[in-house]
Every structure is written in C-alpha cells, then in structure tokens.
C-alpha cells in the first residue's frame, strides 16, 4: 500500500528550495527519516537540507513538533522549517 503525504516548507527553506509545498508518495510505515531520504534524492539544495538533516532542520507532523522516527500515514502533513524567530 502507498501513502500520500503533503510536505510544506517555510522561511529560508521555502526560498532556497523555491517550493512551498508538494505531495510525496511513500510506502506503508515510512518514517519522516524515509521522507527526508526521498527529498534528498533530488538535486543540490534538497540534498544539502535533507541528507542527514542537521539540528537546524525542524520538523512538524500534523502541526506538532515531531522527530525523524515518526511513522507517516496517508493524508499526513509534514512541515520542514528553520528555528523560529518571531516575537
């Protein structure tokens, strides 16, 4: 079975990737780490950010802060963004 997840990017990531959101098809039981692997398989900047993502890559799963081990289900939303700087 395959799952489709919606992936969104913010701030410097959105600009560097020139992409606000996309849909990715993943195998059942894929994790956010697996999703990063998929994204890193694209060209330069994608690889820079998502191949072994650093502490400066924050991730949210269905709008809650999450870890790379989180398992994804069909229809989930995953967001990647740099550390927050509001207020």
């Amino acid at each position, binding site marked *: 079975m395959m799952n489709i997840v919606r992936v969104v990017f913010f701030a*410097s990531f959105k600009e560097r990737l020139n992409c606000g959101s996309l849909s990715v098809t993943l195998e059942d039981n894929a994790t956010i780490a697996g999703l990063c692997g998929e994204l890193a398989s694209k060209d330069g900047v994608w690889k820079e950010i998502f191949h072994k993502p650093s502490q400066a890559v924050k991730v949210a799963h269905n709008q809650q802060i999450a870890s790379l081990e989180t398992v994804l289900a069909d229809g989930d939303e995953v967001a990647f963004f740099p550390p927050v700087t509001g207020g």
Partner: protein
Amino acid sequence: MTNMNQKSSPLLSPNYTIAICSEPLDLAALNGRIQKGVGEHGASVIFTGSVRASDEEKGLVAMTLEHYPGMTESTLQSIIEQAITRWGLVNVVVNHRVGRLTAGEPIVFVGASALHRLAAFEGAQYIMDYLKNKATFWKKEHYIVYGKETSHWVAEKKSDEQSLSRWSE
C-alpha cells in the same frame, strides 16, 4: 483568526484571545481589553515588542514576518493554557503581526491580568519567552546597503533558548 475559551467558574472565568494579523496592531484597543477588566483582577501586565527604529542606522528599512497558519495558533493556545493553569491568569490577549512591517511598528502584543502582580508579571513573561522559542514565526530583515536592498532571515538567538530555563519547575 481568533480563538475564544470560556471556562465555567462563575466569578473569574479565565478567557483568552489569539490573533495573527497582517493589519497594524491597534495598541489602544488591545490595551483596553486588558486594562478595562483590571478592576476585577487587580493586576495586569502588557508587553509590546516593535521593530527597533534604532536599527534603521544599520540600514534596516523593513521586516517580513512569515508564519505557519494553523500550527502557530495551536502552539500559542497551548502556551497560554499552560500559563493560565500555572499562574491563575484571568484574561490573556496575544496578537502577532505578520507580513511586511517598517521600523517602529509593533510586532507583538501580550497582555495578562491576574489577582496579584507576581502572577501577571510571570505569566506575561512566560508567554513571551515561549512564543519566541516555540511559535512558528520567522523574521526576515530588509536592508538598504550602498543603495541596494538586500535581505536575510534572522538567525535564532542563544539568549532566547536560555530564557526558557527559568521556567523549568
């Protein structure tokens, strides 16, 4: 985007409002919402954070605030509910600006009222410290250098992360 919460205690039911807005903050109206009820609550604290005009010297002309719609509101909601529980706050108002702002414009308003001053001070400061560290906002600064506009995303501050340590129980 406004959330309202009313609990059922008859006398002092805590309530809060959260707004993320692309219009300028109306400070007079926001102050009134915190200070009007102050007679019932005894103490209120209002924090306002703005684009520093003094940064204009470095050539700052504007700032752009971006956020993650949905996640920002739910993060703020959970921060405010924790503050209400911990300090018994009676009324909380949080407004945050997004979009393009110029020097001097307010970015964030946090107001909290309580029966006593310690609760109002600590509650408001707790909300601001967590907002700075957890709420999904990002700041981009626009500079004019040698007549040319450049911009860069603001880096996170170590001092902001450290500000949370005081709240660990």
